Structure formats: C-alpha cells, structure tokens
C-alpha cells in the first residue's frame, strides 16, 4: 500500500458530533502546531444545528504557508459513526483513518488503500472517568493525546496550552493532562510512532498570531473608537459583538465608576439595528452593526437613507451562502452586488475587503474614519471563512499617536465664524459637505436630516435642479472616496505578463498558492488584490495592462466581475470569471484548473459564461 510521506505538509480532519465538546480539543490540536512554529489553517465545517449532527474540523498544516483549503485528507480522526462512510471515503490513498475501535469497525468501512489506527477511546474513558459528561469531554482530549504521539506534536506544548486555558480553574488541569497521556500512551504501546506524515518544529510563524476574523473586527471596533454597537444575532456574524463586549468590558470601563464607555444594544431585528447605528452616528458617536446577507437585505431601506442623507455608518457583513436563508453555515462571497448597490434609487456604497485578521482589525478601525470622513455607510465585507475560522495573521499594531479622523464636523466656534451654514454645500469642492452634531450651538447650525430631496441648506425641495445638484455632488463625493479607501495590493514590481489575476478577501489564500503552483509550471501571472470599492486608477491600469484578467470569487454570478465592468467601463471578455460557490472555501487546485482551462488561449468555449466549475 502507498505510504504518504510528508513533514509539515498535511491535512488532518476531525469528524465529530456537534454539541460533544470537540471544539476546544480540536482547537488545541491546531494551536499546538502553530506554537511549534508551523503555519496552520483550521476550518470548522458545521451544521446549522446545536446538537447531534455531524461536524468537521479540518486543519491544513503547511510549512510553506499555504493557508487556503486543500482537498484530500491525509489523516482523518473519526469519532462520529453517522458520517463514517463519507469520512472513510475522503481519505487520500495512503492516508490514515483514526477511529474509536471500542466497537469493531464494520467491514463496509474498510478500504484497501488506507491505513487504519484504532484507539478504544470510549473504553478508555469508561475505565478512567465516572461522570458521563466527563467521559464525553475527555474522549476528545484523548484523541489529541494519541495524535501527539502519531504526529510528533510536542507534549509540552499541549500541556502549556492546557495550563493557559485553565489558569483560573486549576483543578481542571490535572484531569486534562491525564486524558492527553492516556491517548499518548495507548499509541506508544500499540503502534509504531510517529507516522510517515508528521510534524517537526520550525520557525515559520514569527510573531504572527492565530485568530479569527470576527474577534479581529471586534478589536478593530474597540480601537477605532466605536461606542455604540447595535446588532441582531445571525450566523456567522454573531461572535463579533460578543467579542466586542468582552474586550470593551475589559478595556473600556471607567476606572473610577466602573461604568461603561460603550453601549451595546441587542436590537429587535436588523432594521432596528441599522436605525440605531444611524441615530448614534447622526448624534456624533461612532457606531456599528454586524450581520450577514439576510440582514443586509433588511437594512437596505436604511442604507439608502444613510447614503442620501449622508450619515456615517459602519456595517460588517460576514457573508454566508445565499440566496435567502441559503447555507447559513457555509462560506461564500455572494453579497457584493446587494451590498454595493443596496437600496432603491441611484445608490452606491463603499465596500472594504479584508483578507486576513490583521486587515479585519485595520479596516474596521479605518471604517470609522472613512464613515466620518465620507459621511456615508462603509460596509466591511468579511465572510464565514474569514470570520469564524482561525487564521495565521500578522500581529495587530496601533500607533499611539493616531487621531481619529472625525471628518468635517463644525464646532460651536466654527459656527460662530461662518456666515451661513449649509449642510449640503460643497464648500471644498470634494463633494463632502460639513455637518453639525445636535446640541452644538444654541442658535446656529441646526438643520433637518431627511431622506427626501433637499437643497444645499437641508430644506425640503421638489425642485428638479436642486435635486440634480445634490445627486451630482454625491457622485463627486464618490470620486473623492477613491482617494481615501485602502489601495489595492500589487504582487509584482512591474506588470510583465499578458495575463493578470484579481482576487480579494478569502480568495487570496488559494489564489496566492495557485499562482506559485502555476509559476512552477511556467505560467506567470501578474496579480492584484482588491481591498476596496470604489476602485481606483491602479485597478483600471492593471486591467488595461493585461490581455486577459482572471477574477477569482466565491459566488455563482461573478458579481465582482460585474461591478468591475460596470464601474470601470471594461470590455467584459477581458475578464474571465474563476468561480467556486459550493460553500467550501475555494482551493488553489480549483483556481489552477480553471485558469489552465483558459490559458494560453480561450480554447473551447467562446462564451465565458459557460465556464464550468469542477465539483470540489
């Protein structure tokens, strides 16, 4: 039988039942490898359910730092009989299948081309623990212990993690250690170890951190000065405000009174959440809300109000599989059009596309500056993969001299010195007017905010010319926005190929890997990573510089490609969609295959709409 041999380059998958407490054990596994200096990329694949259904945890370990998803499992840990058939199948030939052999494995699960490692997890827990809940929980720790021997994970690192976790519950440390050791020693007694696929300490993560995007967003909001968070729970965005609360509670209490320097409102729905944000920002606070696709649809009337009345707002859209309720626990990037053009009438919104936790942190903090500067909603486009999975990320940084950019807000003193305040006057020629915060001045600067058409002095008007002046100024403001939003990242000093690659957000991980792999095959691509909408000149030039540009995204309708064509007046056939939308993060392999099918000339199909995505 084939033997896979690999050091620090493998995919380990855990098959569990949700609600059985496997998450913390699995996290410990990934974190330990990370602490051994080896880049890891864990992914939760979980059902929309609380208890009793299959759930998977997949860890890609890659010394080279390839952190996108990869098909093909090298080692499967299966403790869920429900999913066993599928799980056996997903192991690569020559791979390993670790299972609970307290009961004998049914013959239908036996494949000739993979290795089986039976560990009597249930039997061990039955013997060593009496409380059924402890049995359940420690089963998970036992398999981690077993893996430490099988894969050569440093036991000290694992124990260090446990000590860290149970710092304030010391009495839980010993039983956890014991469980680890039970697993380890079972392996050592019964198998040759380590396996041919295994780990070795490296120094490949540097000072990086392992963190999920939602926590990063929450920290960005704390650092960016958000004081009001209004939200309604929805997967996969829910954990953001939880984390915001946790850190604000720790870092934002008034030291004297113990009172909060923030307010969190769990709204009655997404419409109300967005309304609260608008009310708070209108009143001069920094406020944000978090949601996913369905929430954006519900917020769409309010987004139009904020656009037209020019009220700052920060919205975090952690995208999930759509349309409608869709695939609530799967990842996609399917809300680009609905977010960019949310609401009726001529509207358009600024989008930010973070691709790492570091950018989640940075862009969230920046979003508040942008919202105040541009007086318009800023939508941070995260997704389930980025938001809910841990990612290796550069550490977060903050310049203590940094000042919040509150934009064009007039103080009482300013008002004294102004002849006539016009809320919607384009004083500076950049399309951005000045605003005042309620309560500023006893007799000057008050105005009426409304979603109806108005003149430069915020007075209601049905006059067509005044309306046109106002909406044309909004276009000018849109031009100004291009200068303020994060610029795209280029991956070459100079463009030097006919073919270009555009990606953004979580397509980045797989796209960079695909580029390297293709490069090794002699296919060189220039690349650009989008970080915001509206697009600036660099994007236009990058596309103009290439015969064909591949646009990688995770939705069916090639929405980013549409927006690029629309906004930059591009020739559509120049942009080739590279799509994956089955709810799993896109893989380098998918990108590579799709690019190859179009390279060097558009071979088979002329109609690029017919591009087929291989089932992945």
């Amino acid at each position: 039988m084939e033997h896979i041999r690999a050091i620090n380059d493998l995919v380990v998958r855990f098959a569990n039942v949700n609600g059985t407490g496997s998450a913390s054990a699995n996290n410990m596994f990934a974190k330990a490898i990370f602490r051994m200096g080896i880049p890891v990329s864990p992914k939760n694949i979980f059902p929309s359910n609380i208890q009793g259904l299959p759930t998977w945890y997949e860890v890609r370990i890659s010394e080279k730092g390839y952190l996108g998803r990869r098909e093909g499992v090298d080692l499967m840990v299966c403790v869920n009989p429900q999913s066993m058939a599928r799980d056996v199948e997903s192991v690569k030939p020559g791979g390993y299948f670790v299972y609970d052999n307290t009961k004998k494995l049914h013959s239908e699960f036996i494949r000739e081309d993979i290795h089986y490692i039976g560990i009597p997890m249930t039997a061990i827990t039955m013997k060593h623990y009496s409380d059924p809940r402890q049995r359940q929980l420690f089963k998970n720790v036992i398999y981690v212990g077993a893996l430490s021997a099988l894969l050569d994970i440093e036991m000290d690192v694992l124990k260090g993690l446990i000590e860290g976790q149970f710092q304030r519950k010391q009495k839980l440390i010993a039983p956890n250690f014991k469980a680890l050791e039970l697993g380890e020693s079972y392996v050592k007694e019964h198998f040759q170890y380590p396996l041919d696929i295994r780990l070795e300490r490296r120094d490949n993560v540097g000072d990086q951190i392992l963190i999920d995007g939602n926590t990063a967003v929450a920290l960005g909001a704390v650092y960016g000065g958000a004081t009001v968070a209004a939200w309604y729970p929805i997967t996969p965005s829910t954990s953001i405000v939880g984390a915001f609360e946790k850190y604000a509670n720790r870092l934002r209490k008034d030291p004297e009174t113990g009172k909060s320097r923030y307010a969190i409102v769990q709204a009655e729905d997404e419409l109300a959440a967005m309304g609260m944000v608008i009310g708070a920002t209108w009143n001069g606070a920094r406020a944000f809300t978090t949601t996913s696709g369905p929430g954006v649809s519900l917020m769409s009337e309010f987004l139009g109000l904020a656009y037209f009345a020019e009220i700052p707002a920060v919205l975090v859209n952690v995208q999930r599989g759509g349309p409608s309720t869709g695939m609530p626990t799967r990842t996609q990037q399917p809300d680009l059009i609905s977010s960019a053009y949310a609401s009726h009438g001529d509207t358009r919104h600024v989008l930010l596309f973070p691709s790492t936790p570091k950018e989640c942190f940075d862009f969230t903090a920046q979003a508040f500056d942008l919202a105040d500067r541009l007086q318009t909603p800023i939508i941070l486009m995260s997704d389930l993969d980025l938001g809910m999975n841990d990612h290796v990320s550069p550490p977060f940084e903050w310049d203590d001299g940094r000042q919040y950019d509150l934009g064009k807000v007039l103080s009482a003193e300013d008002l004294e010195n102004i002849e006539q305040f016009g809320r919607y006057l384009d004083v500076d020629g950049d399309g951005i007017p000045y605003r005042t915060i309620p309560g500023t001045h006893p007799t000057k600067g008050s105005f009426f905010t409304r979603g109806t058409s108005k003149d430069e002095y915020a007075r209601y008007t049905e006059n067509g010319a005044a309306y046109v002046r106002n909406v044309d100024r909004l276009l000018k403001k849109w031009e100004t926005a291009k200068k303020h939003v994060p610029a795209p990242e280029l991956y070459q000093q100079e463009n030097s190929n006919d073919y270009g690659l555009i990606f953004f957000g979580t397509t980045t991980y797989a796209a960079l890997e695909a580029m390297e792999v293709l490069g090794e095959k002699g296919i060189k691509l220039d690349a650009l990573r989008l970080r915001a909408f509206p697009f600036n000149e660099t994007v236009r030039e990058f596309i103009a510089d290439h015969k064909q540009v591949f646009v990688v995204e995770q939705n069916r309708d090639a929405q980013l490609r549409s927006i690029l064509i629309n906004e930059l007046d591009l020739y559509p056939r120049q942009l080739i969609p590279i799509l994956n939308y089955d709810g799993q993060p896109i893989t380098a392999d998918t990108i590579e295959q799709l690019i190859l099918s179009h390279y060097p000339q558009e071979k088979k199909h002329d109609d690029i709409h017919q591009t087929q995505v291989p089932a992945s």
Partner: protein
Amino acid sequence: MTYIKPRFRHPELPKNKIGFAKADYEGAISTLCGGCGHDSISAAIVQACYELSIEPHKLAKLSGIGCSSKTPTYFLSNSHGFNAVHGRMPSIATGANMANRDLIYLGVSGDGDSASIGMGQFVHAIRRNVNMVYIVMNNGCYGLTKGQNSATADIGSLSKGGAVNHYPAIDLVGLALELGATFVGRSFSGDKTQLVPLIKAAMSHPGFALLDVVSPCVTFNNKPESTKSYDYVRAHLEATATIDFVPEKEEITVNYPKGKSAHVELHDGSIIHLHKLAPNWNPTDRYSAVNRLLEAKMKGEVLTGLLYIDPNSQDMHELENTIDQPLNTLREKELCPGSEALEKINASFR
C-alpha cells in the same frame, strides 16, 4: 395652510427663565391642511418647551413619515431634526439617545407610522425604556397617503376611498401599559390645558413617555355616522372620483375639567366622547390603570390624562450602566486602549 403664529411680532415679547421668547421655539410655517389637529399639537409643544425653559439646541426632534411626522419642521427651528423613514423613528431615537444621554429626545409619529409599519420598533423602544417623549398624533387614518384606515381606526370607519374597516382598533395606551411602559398618557389635540402640562411632564420623565394624542384629520376622517358635513362637496367628489378638494376648516378646541366628560364634534360631524381622569387619580398604580382603561373602553369613552407613571423608572443608560458623560464626547484618550494593551492581546493569540 396653517400659520401656527403670525411672523411679525412685538419686540418686547415676554421671555422665559433662560431668556428665550416663545417665538424662539417656533418653526417654519406649517403646510398641513387648515384646521389639522397636528398643528394644535405643534403649538402645544412650542408652549411646553417655552414654559419648561428648554434650551432649544438641547432637544432633538425626530419623526417618521406622514403628515404628523412633518410637524417637527413646524416647531423648534433651533433644534436638530431627523425625519427618518416610515415607521423607523424609534430605532433612530434609541441610537441617538445611546450616543448622547444629555439631550431631550422628542419623537413625533402618526398612528400609521407607529401602529402599522412601526409596531415592532414602538414596542421595543417601550421595552427598553429609552429616555424620550413619544407623541403619537393619532387620527385613525393615513393622512399623507390620502386617507386609508389605519390600525387605530374604529371598527366600521370608512376610508375616503370607501373601504370599511372591519378590524378592532389598536389602543396604543393599553398596549404600552401591557408592555410595562413607565409613562403613559393620552390627550386631545385641541385641549391645550391638558396637553401642555402632559408634554411638560413627559419631558421631565426619565424614561419612555408615551403621549397618545387624538388629533382629527379634517380632510380624510370620515365616520359613517357623519351626515352633515361635505354635503355638496362630497356629492361632487363622489361623482368625479377625485379627492382633491379640501374645504378650509377651523381648529377644533375643547376645554373641560378633570373627572368630567366632553363630547367633541369633529369636522365630519361625528362625535368623540372624551373622559378626563379625576383630579385625585393615582397614576402610580399600573393595575388600576389597566382596569380603569378597560372600563372606559367598555363605555365607549376615550380616557384622557396621565394614566400611569412609574416613579422609579430607570432608563436604558441606567440599566446598562453607561458612563454619565455622553458617549459622543469621548475621544482617543477615553476610548483607545493603546498599543501596549494590544501587544498583550496579540500575545494571547500566540
């Protein structure tokens, strides 16, 4: 078009405690129909703010969409105003209040704006006890969209288009009591002696203060029992099927003592039975308030006055233990934990 007040006035107008004349609390000229109850309420708001010596810029006025929701333009020009989208003022007010607990928030809404599209937000603003005055200018119909029945219309009401309302009226006062509102009052637009003190009380209440103000729509209210008005005009409108004629009407006023009833004739000739709570009414007993309201309802009376007030009301900020200083005044120093704390956080993710 109603002029709340003629624009020319004597220079030596009386001033309130903080040196403002009543004119300083006025707004733009109203563009509502002549005689519209909403204009009377606007006038009462002006009066109340003047008497309370409120600094105009320390008050924010918010509304939804509708004739009623237009009124904030017609009072308090020196206050910031926010005309939200239809039915969504409560959430805007909640957010605004979170941002700055030091202003007075005056929300104005209509029965369509609050009891239909805005029901969810209305209920939850009450539940959170957001510190604001919430005035519903309740005319039982959708004025601005030309007279459809609203959810507070009486059973059997006819809309201008002829549709009969078969459904029970939602009583916002009863609803607020059920939901645990901490200040619940009702009045009639034309009853200034009752309305002005109620608005003042509401503004002084530290929590959500609901004022349901019956406010006749002179143009579209159309009770079936009404016989005497519109005569020729109505025949004309029926024949031509256009509803673009609005005869000029006078403001309806009423003045009656506490504990007594008044039968007020509306513009369409129908009668409304108001009953004012007795002077010795104890408004701090929710149980009695619910019962008294039920009783009045069974008699077909519209009970007015301050039905209930919770003297121990705690608003959202108190419940959430927010800092006293308005959140919108905090800056980097108070908000940003700095690079050192961030380095510790980074370390916790290694």
